Structures are given as C-alpha cells and as structure tokens.
C-alpha cells in the first residue's frame, strides 16, 4: 500500500516535471530570431477586409498564385476575423508558433512592437522592398513608436468620411453635405423626425468610439497621451471632446438612442435602409453595395471640422486608418517573407488589392490610378493626404482603446437611458479609465 502511494506520488511529480520542462523548452525557442529553414513555404494571416471571409479568399487567392509562379514559394493563406485576430497574434507571440507574415490593424503597431514579436523594419529591410519613401508619410506614421524602427509596413490605407443619403437630404431640403459640426447638427435636426435620424453611431464598439473621440479631441487641441507617452485623459479638451460626441445623442438628439448598443455595424445597415441619413465611416462603398444600395443613392464628403476646411492641427478630420503588413520575427523563411512583403507592396498588387477592397494604396506610385479618384475614393484619398492623423503610437494603445472606449460606451448608455451626460459625469468616467491604465 505504502509503496504504491510512493509510486503514485513519483509518477505525479515526474509527469509534472516533464510537462513543466517541456513548456519551458517551448518558450525558450520563442526567444530566437528568424531563419531560412523552410524556404519554399510561407504562412500568411490576412485580416478580414472584404464583405466576408470567402470574399477575401477570392480576392487573395489569384494574387498568391501569381506570387508562387514568380518565386516558387507556396503561401498558405488564413483569413482571420477581426474579433479573433489580436488574440491569435498574442497566442502566437507567447507560443512562438505563428505565421510568417501577417496583417495587423495599424493602431496595434506600437503595442505589438513592444512585445518584440515582429521583425523591425530597419533601413536594410526597407531597402529590400524598394525603400521607405515609396510610402505615403501619414501611413508610415502609424507603424510604431516614433524614433524606433517600424514594426510593420503599410498595406491598405483608409480614412473616415461622411457618407450621406442623397434622397433624404433632398427630402429635408438640404442642398449640400455639412462641412462643420454646427451644420451637421442643424441638418441632423431637420432630418430627425418620424422614425428617421440624422446620424448613425456604433456606441458599443470600443474601437469605433476611440476613432471618433480621437478626432473630436484633436479638433479641441487635446491629446490622450502626453508627449512622453503618459495617459492624459482628463484634460479639459478631452472631456469637452467626448461630451460633444455623446451630446450628438444626449443633447442634439440626432443619433437614435438605439445606436448606444450597436457594435456590429448595425448603423451601416440602418443607413442602407434609409433609417439614418449620415454616417461617419471608413471605406463603406463595398459594404453599401453588398447591402443593396446603388452608387447614385449616396454621396461622400470630407468628415466635418469645427470651422473652416479640413487640414492639420485642430482641423484634423480623421484618424489614419489602415492595415499594416508585418513579418513574425521567428519566421523560418526570412528571405521569402521579405519577398512576399515586396510583392504585396508592389505598385501592381497595391492597385489590384486596394481596388478590390475600396481602400487607398499607401504606396505613392499606385495612387495615380484612376480607380482612386472616383466619388467613393477621392474624399478618402484627400483626407489621408491632408487632414488625417495617426492614433497615439504608444505601447499602451490597446489599453487606451479598451478603457476610454468603454467609458464612451457607458456614456452612450447613460444618454440612451435618458440620464444626464454632464461635464462632471464625463470627467468621472475618464478619471476611472485613466486609473485603469498600467502604472509606470
């Protein structure tokens, strides 16, 4: 009896020790750099850019075949939904078992850069894909912390613009799209009656909230981070900015209260159904078509500013939205991965891919194509070139999105329930958000 117990304890200890050492072994290889051990294959994680994952596969497959013909490297494609992408990247980072090349949301660049999982794009690496100056500056501004080698290269660029329903505008007697917030509120009030609403919003979508309040803050001359990267959420400008945004529902009542719980692009389908007359969106054209809206039913205008025309400084009217292409540092096909990035950022591929997704190429030479000068794309291209600014490039960016995004979500919930949204209540929420940020 006793010997059995001893044996059992021995077995337990042994298997524990084995398992622990096995895991330890795994993580130590994760610390290693890249190699060229399997030069014939690449794994590519693409983000979901089209209307569905099937659409993405259809767009990308022929291009990957082209790449294989040119280089003999076979690319295994996996399209990953947005809801999972960041978790998958984190898992890959911890385990070291990741793709060779992957798409990342450009706002994650600095956070992922801090993890050290991505290949830094020093001059040598940039030279291998034709040099840094092939890319538009604003897009390069969203590839990592300033002064460090970028963690990724820009792949698709997007910007916010105001999409409006031409018929609803005409019915309300509005002749041209609003250029300032005051005009937008006035127009919105004319439209918001009888079950129809002026503006749509995704009140429960944390990232969307961040994108909007970032621009509002810029227009009030405020930033959510100090120059040395410390969170600064409670400045007067930031509080006013967030209150202004939520007031579109709370005070001006041009956003339907129901939008407070939207997080899955319901506002886009409301727009397509003619329930709301305006939305602020990035590259909505392809989705609007798939929702059954004809191209002549909607118009695009630059997103509003407080006064004057969009530009830099307090006249910024969009974040630099977009997708970056990154190489996993411990890839086992380092040279092949660089070749693939070169292929994806080549002028020809940039035109094909950005056309298919309705986005703007971050590669200067590709922008001249007439496809990027249509009603849908001209406003976006202009905004990117003149009046878009990158979200804060700090390692804590993802925490910022979660904490401040949640604060805005809760304020929308207050507004929807008819509870007052005051400067004090906004400030209190932002104080709480700031306390949740990691102490340094």
């Amino acid at each position, binding site marked *: 009896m006793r010997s059995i117990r001893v044996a059992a304890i021995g077995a337990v200890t042994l298997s524990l020790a084995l398992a622990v050492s096995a895991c330890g072994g795994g993580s130590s290889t994760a610390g290693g750099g890249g190699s060229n051990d399997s030069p014939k294959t690449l794994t590519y994680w693409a983000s979901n850019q089209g209307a569905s994952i099937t659409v993405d596969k259809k767009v990308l497959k022929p291009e990957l075949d082209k790449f294989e013909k040119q280089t003999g490297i076979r690319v295994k494609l996996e399209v990953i939904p947005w809801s999972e992408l960041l978790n998958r990247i984190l898992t890959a980072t*911890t385990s070291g078992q990741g793709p060779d090349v992957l798409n990342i949301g450009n706002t994650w660049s600095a956070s992922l850069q801090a993890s050290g999982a991505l290949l830094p794009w020093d001059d040598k690496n940039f030279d291998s894909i034709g040099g840094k100056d092939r890319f538009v500056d604003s897009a390069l501004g969203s590839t990592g912390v300033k002064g460090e080698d970028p963690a990724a290269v820009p792949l698709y660029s997007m910007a916010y613009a105001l999409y409006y329903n031409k018929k609803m505008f005409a019915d309300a007697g509005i002749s041209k799209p609003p250029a300032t917030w005051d005009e937008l509120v006035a127009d919105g009030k004319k439209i918001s009656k009888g079950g129809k609403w002026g503006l749509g919003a995704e009140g429960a979508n944390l990232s969307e909230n961040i994108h909007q309040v970032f621009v509002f803050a810029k227009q009030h001359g405020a930033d959510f981070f100090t120059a040395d990267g410390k969170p600064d959420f409670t400045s007067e400008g930031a509080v006013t900015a967030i209150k202004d945004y939520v007031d579109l529902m709370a005070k001006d009542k041009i956003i339907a209260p129901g939008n407070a*719980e939207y997080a899955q692009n319901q506002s886009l389908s409301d727009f397509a159904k003619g329930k709301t007359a305006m939305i602020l969106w990035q590259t909505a054209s392809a989705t609007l078509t798939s929702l059954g809206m004809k191209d002549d039913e909607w118009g695009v205008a630059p997103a509003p500013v407080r006064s004057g025309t969009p530009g830099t400084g307090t006249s910024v009217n969009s974040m630099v939205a977009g997708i970056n292409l990154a190489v996993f540092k411990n890839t086992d096909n380092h040279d092949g991965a660089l070749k693939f990035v070169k292929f994806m950022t080549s002028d020809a591929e940039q035109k094909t891919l950005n056309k298919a997704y309705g986005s703007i190429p971050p590669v200067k030479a590709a922008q001249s194509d007439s496809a990027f000068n249509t009603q849908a794309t001209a406003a976006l291209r202009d905004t990117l070139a003149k009046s878009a600014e990158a979200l804060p490039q700090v390692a804590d960016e993802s925490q910022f999105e979660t904490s401040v995004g949640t604060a805005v979500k809760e304020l929308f919930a207050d507004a929807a329930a008819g509870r007052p949204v005051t400067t004090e209540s906004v400030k209190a929420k932002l104080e709480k958000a700031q306390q949740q940020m990691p102490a340094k």
Partner: protein
Amino acid sequence: MTTTTATAKTDGRTESAGSTPGAARGPRRPGRIRRIGLPYLLLLPALVLELLVHLVPMVMGILMSFKALTRFSIRDWGAAPWSGFDNYKISVDFNAPAGEALLHSFWVTCGFTVLSVGLCWLLGTATAIFLQDTFRGRGLLRALFLVPYALPVYAAVITWAFMFQHDNGLVNHVLHDQLGLTDKPSFWLIGDNSFIALLTVSVWKGWPFAFLVVMAGLQNIPKELYEAAALDGAGMWQQIRRITLPSLAPVNQVLVLVLFLWTFNDFNTPYVLFGKAAPEAADLISIHVYQTTFATWNFGTGSAMSVLLLLFLLVVTGGYLLLTSRRRKTADV
C-alpha cells in the same frame, strides 16, 4: 508512464516466480498488490491526462501570477521578472481602481449566481414534480423542456442577443409594443437592465439540467411512501415537503454544487451577449478576468485574479461538501 510498465513487470515476474516451490510468502503479496494496485493502475492513464490537461495549466497560471507578465515579456514569459505578491496586492487593494472593480465584479457574480442557481433549481424541481404524474403529452413536454440544454450555447445566446435588441428585439416588441408594460422600449444589453437579461438567459439555459437531474432522482423514490402518506391524510404539499424533498437531498447536494460552479464560472453567456466589455451591472468575474488579461495585456494580474477565484471556489466547495455531508450523516443517524 515509467511506473506503469515497472509495476506491470514486477507483477509478471513474481507471478512466474510464484509457481516455483520454496517461495511460500511470495504469491500472497503480489496477489494483494494486484488486488489493491489494479484500480490505481487503471486510473493511471486518466490521472496522467488529467495532470497534463488540467493541473499543468493551473500550475502555469499560478506561476504566471507571481510574474510581471505584460506585453513586454509575453514573447519569452519564462524570462519575465518575478514580482512576488505584487499582482495579488493590486487585485485585492480594494481602495485602488483595479481592486475595487474586481470586488464589484465579485459581488455582481455572487448575486447573479445565487439568483440563477436558485431559480434554476426551483423551476427544475417544480417542473419535474409536476411531470411525475402520467398524462397525455408528458413525453413531449419533457423533450421540449430539454431543448435549451441541447442547443449549442453560442447559437442560443446570440439568438437571445437579437431578442434583447432595443429597436427590433422580440422582448421589447412584446413588453412594450404589444403589452404596453413599459413607457418606452427598454435597453437590455447596456445599462442596469443587462443584469436581468443575463439572468434570464442563464436560467433559461440552466434549468433544464436541474429538471433532468431531479426527474432522475424522483424515479428512485418508492411509490409506497406516497401511498402510505396519502392513507395517513397527507396532502400534496405535505408529501412534497416530507417525502420528495428529503429523498432528493443527495441529488440536490450534487446538483446545487454543479450549478453553482458552472454559473459562477460562466464565460460564454456574458461574452456572447455583451462582447468584450460587459456593462458594469453584468460584469461577471470570468469576463472581468478576461478583460484584465487579454484586453489590457496584463497576464500577471489576470492570473493572480484567476488564482484568487480558484481559491474562493475551492473554499466554498470544500465548505459546502463538509456541511452537507455532515448534515446528511446526522440525518441518517
């Protein structure tokens, strides 16, 4: 694995040795070892797998909770700096925001669990008792009541999320448009009502299990007891109180414990219903830990919170089992 083969070998060898004369004491011991050892031997594969699948990750989690594991170190987390009890201090410092939020989430979870388990048990037991008498359509009803339990969680909860929508949801359509019970359509997925929404889905999803288990338990109560009670003039209510419930006690002991653990740890329901950031009123602890860990990339603190949760559940489970089995023992005497 080494032990398995070693024990088997010893067994085989002594068996053959047993046939040789002069080993009088030999055959008895291997026989005993085999008799006592066999159950252990049979359990060993399960034990090893249990260790690998359950305990090793748990040990990893406990190790992680003592490290300052953030985005800067996840790539090689073995090398992350040790931080002693810092993560625990952050988690239980109820005057600071992180600890305060955890405590709030803990109370929400406690309230939610008590209500959900209570309602699941009550509904399940009542239905099981009512369906004890044979009547036409009983089989159909029993099958129907088990449907929520058989549905895939994700599909079921996402359907509820649609029904709870403010503008087009079925719940508001019935409560507001048709019955006129509310002045204006209510929000169920944001704000304070989200607690009610969460509770509704949880009870809807959980009570069929209680129903199933109690129904099985009821089949074991001898009919004679009820007949005798009826002869003695006991009404239905008295029969339930004096016969049914006491006979169900052992079943209930396990049922309530299992429901408690499932509900307290429930992650799927709030995650599918509310997404990554649950409203404050429905901020269950599992989703809170998830948010701390993944949304803010603070794996050390997230692990510390998980360990605290584990300890709490261990204490409650241990205390509960101790209490209920002692009570049953005294009842048996």
